[in-house]
């Protein structure tokens, strides 16, 4: 809809009103036209021997004194030549073998029992007059009238005003319904799609602001709301990132200063605290990394990534083993996936004593299961655990290295960025299985792209 149109015309109710008005006008015009044409047909029929005319004329003649009838009949014959109205002194005998003639019903309904109507024998006619039939009517005084009539036809009734009106109301209501459905459905499904595809990390595609005024207003409000949400999130992200960045300088200084602490125990404690702080800021910063600084997806060997994570934790003295194929090629972001799995293993080693990282692949997905033998997580807490800044303990104690509770949510975000998912499940005896599922089909598709890039 062009913006040049008047404000009034752009509103839905105005458009509906115009549509209804226009369809009423069309209906009116059609009805008028149909009445006009059917009247013309009727008029033509009157001169061609319309039985209704004949009934009137019979009554007129019957009500006229006998000595006035001759000029009247003459006058009628002059005015209605096709009617062939004639006076007869005697009633002609009914036509042989006529049986019940349906064509006489109309006349009988209007003329019986005062008048007696019979079908008169008629000569065969051809052409336009083939349907004409002759009748004779006996008047109360014994004389008779003969005339040639045309049978009444049903057609004028069928295309009569009521039928036409109903037909056009049905058509216009259907059209109106279709128009309304289309006009409302299209923008609504656009909204649904836009709301559905609202991704803070992705590029915001503006919802097109077109259509009726109301729809445009909603689209505009929607776009503005999306911008506000993005701005809000961006502001918070920047604030958190600035904190993460700025904390590094004092942590670096403290780290250096602590090297000069003579007392060994005190120094060890301080280094532990500083490591914890560093882990937290690292966690926050990697959580906040935006799409621009995110590494590109590439062809990678997921199995060696998992082996590497297991080796790193094994070197720190944890019992972490890898079980799975030696090589599984997927397309993904190697550093991100390594971080995700490392976070899961870190969690597992914190709550359990033995951790197994299991890699399985099926036709349509690869599954990385990190299994521990710890106490597990109650079902009601599982979903909350995947959110940022939520930790297993209800109280936010800082006496361990669990950081801000970002580990699982970072793993979840990374899994989802790969088109996969992170789920927490209970292990059969006791313990927890954190399972990252990555789609194999999408990854295969990306592999081709990555290979082309490489």
């Amino acid at each position, binding site marked *: 809809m062009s913006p040049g149109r008047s404000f009034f015309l752009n509103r839905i109710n105005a458009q509906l009103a115009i549509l209804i008005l226009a369809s009423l006008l069309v209906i009116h015009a059609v009805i008028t036209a149909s009445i006009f044409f059917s009247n013309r047909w009727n008029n033509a029929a009157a001169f061609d021997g319309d039985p209704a005319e004949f009934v009137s004329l019979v009554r007129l003649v019957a009500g006229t004194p006998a000595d006035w009838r001759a000029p009247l009949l003459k006058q009628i014959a002059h005015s209605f030549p096709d009617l062939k109205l004639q006076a007869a002194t005697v009633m002609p005998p009914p036509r042989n073998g006529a049986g019940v003639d349906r064509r006489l019903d109309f006349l009988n309904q209007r003329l019986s029992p005062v008048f007696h109507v019979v079908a008169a024998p008629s000569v065969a006619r051809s052409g336009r007059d083939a349907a004409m039939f002759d009748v004779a009517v006996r008047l109360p005084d014994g004389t008779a009238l003969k005339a040639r009539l045309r049978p009444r036809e049903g057609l004028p009734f069928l295309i009569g005003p009521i039928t036409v009106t109903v037909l056009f109301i049905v058509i216009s209501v259907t059209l109106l319904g279709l128009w309304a459905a289309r006009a409302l459905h299209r923008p609504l499904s656009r909204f649904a799609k836009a709301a559905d595809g609202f991704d803070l990390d992705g590029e915001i595609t503006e919802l097109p602001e077109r259509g009726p005024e109301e729809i445009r207003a909603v689209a505009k409000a929607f776009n503005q709301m999306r911008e506000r949400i993005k701005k809000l999130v961006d502001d918070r992200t920047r604030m958190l990132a600035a904190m993460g960045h700025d904390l*590094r300088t004092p*942590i670096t200084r403290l780290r*250096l200063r602590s*090297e000069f602490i003579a007392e060994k125990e005190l120094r060890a404690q301080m280094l532990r605290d500083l490591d914890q702080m560093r882990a937290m*800021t690292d966690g926050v910063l990697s959580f906040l990394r935006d799409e621009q600084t995110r590494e590109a997806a590439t*062809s*990678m060997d997921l199995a060696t990534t998992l082996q590497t994570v297991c080796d790193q934790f094994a*070197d720190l003295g944890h019992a972490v083993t890898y079980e799975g194929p030696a090589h599984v*090629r997927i397309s993904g972001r190697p550093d991100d996936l390594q971080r995700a799995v490392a976070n899961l293993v870190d969690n597992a080693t914190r709550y359990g004593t033995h951790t197994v990282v299991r890699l399985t692949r099926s036709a349509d997905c690869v599954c990385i299961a990190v299994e521990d033998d710890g106490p597990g997580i109650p079902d009601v807490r599982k979903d909350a655990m995947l959110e940022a800044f939520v930790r297993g303990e209800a109280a936010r104690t800082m006496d361990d290295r669990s950081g801000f509770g970002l580990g699982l949510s970072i793993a979840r975000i990374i899994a989802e960025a790969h088109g996969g998912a992170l789920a927490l499940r209970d292990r059969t005896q006791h313990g927890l299985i954190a399972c990252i599922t990555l789609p194999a089909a999408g990854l295969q598709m990306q592999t081709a792209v990555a290979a082309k890039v*490489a």
Partner: protein
Amino acid sequence: MTKLPHILVVEDDREISGLVALYLRSNECRVTVTDSGREVYRLMNDSRIDLIVLDLMLPGEDGISLCRRLRTTSQVPIVILTGKGDEVDRILGLEMGADDYLSKPFNPRELLARIRAVLRRSAISALSPVTDAPRAFTFLGWRIDRVVRELRDPDGARIALTDAEFGLLQAFCERPGRILSRDQLLEVTQGRSAGLFERSIDVLVSRLRRKIESDPHQPSMIKTVRSGGYMFTPTVEIA
């Protein structure tokens, strides 16, 4: 006294540079500190500098371009300090010719270990004809890239390696077809990653074999040499 290595610390945070200087001095280094890139050239003219510790986040001329300019005129080893997660800076720094990097907040002991390792390497390369370390090697279709620190298999898939494994493979690629003793391997890989000192080279080799050999039990690339150590058999080309 003259045998102490002379380290130039370029860092705009005076407290950090002061503390780094203090720490390095207490560990047998001679340290000069500056907070501006402009000072670097004057200081290099005034005295012999053995190594520069360069913070990439400098006011005025940033560390990256300083690093690039230094490389055009000098072979002095450079260790860069970057913020965590600033991958781009790290890669740029290494491409501009930095010898090693450390991300803040760093462990001072690790800084010292890296400085020593870089100094040792530069001392070795000063004696040997090989001057510039090549950016990447290829062998049997595999490609190991020193700057972005990645290994790709013949199909182009990235193979995850720890720092220690990467250092070991790099050492093999720099010396193909030669028998390398465990001590030698420890020596060349030292400093690439802190914590390697205690780790057995054998463990590293078996992990590396698991990742690159088609049959880790019948290794064809990294052969064990009885009584000697290990030998990297593929033909290595500089890419």
